[in-house]
């Protein structure tokens, strides 16, 4: 089995209102030197068998068609052997 760890983030330049709010909360708590906070999504998808190459192509399609909106978001992912 393979596990896909997928990261979906707002594109650079797209205002992240949530991230900005968390940044100011961190500053309120006294954390110094916080340049920027960006909030994204982290998805873990477990795949039932299949070759790595095939899984890469499949996850790529998942990201393009559903998991990320190309207008506002970028994505990246890594594949790992599950339970390895």
């Amino acid at each position, binding site marked *: 089995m393979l596990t896909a760890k997928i990261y979906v983030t707002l594109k650079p330049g797209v*205002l992240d209102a949530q991230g900005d709010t968390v940044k100011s909360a961190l500053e309120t708590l006294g954390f110094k030197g916080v340049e920027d906070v960006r909030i994204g999504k982290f998805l873990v998808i477990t795949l039932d068998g299949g070759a790595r190459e095939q899984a890469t192509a499949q996850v790529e399609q998942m990201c393009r068609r559903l998991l990320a*909106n190309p207008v506002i978001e970028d994505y990246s992912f890594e594949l790992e052997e599950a339970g390895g």
Partner: protein
Amino acid sequence: MKFGIVVFPGSWSQQDFHHVIVNVLKEEACYLWHKEADLKGSDCVILPGGFAHGDYLRTGAIARFSPVMREVARFADKGGLVLGSCNGFQILTEAGLLPGALLRNDCLHYRCTWVHLRVESRHTPFTSAMQHGQVVRMPISHGEGRYYIDQAGWRRLVENGQVIFRYCDEKGALTKEANPNGSLDHVAGVCNERRNVLGLMPHPERAAEAILGSEDGRLMFASILYTLARA
């Protein structure tokens, strides 16, 4: 004329639209369950507000793959009139039927309030009964209504006159205070290049009777009916 109102799990404005169309305008309306790939002979399709599929993943992200949306896309492709309000607007952008995207409000609030809108173009089937520059009043109710599009897309929108409504003050001025969610250049509603698909964050169906505070939403329905009657 027959209006088809799409209902997803989590839609919430379908009954308001139905009420206005049937009881106020005395026209025909039917519900289109999202799993049915049939528009039931509708002359105009409406995607109402709400939280389709819980807005899980992103607003409209799951709803766009419902069977009914294939038919909505076909209908739009043939020139059929499609109106999306609030969540309906979000779904239309996710489906690629309208350009851009709706992001979380910049103000940390879910905004549920009355807003003023400036009509930027009356050259659409949805605004033909309005005047260019007219200020209309409708309510909004959303947490993710900040319109965004990249620079290239923005240039195309402006060149084609696809920005149809902008948030403004009661005099039509684009003040910072009048923009309730941080939308790019005050955008409240846009149409597609062909101008037969319109999305807006405000709720025309909640502004169609004087007792509710505004009848300005009626102008949108009047525009649609006028367009359909001429077709």
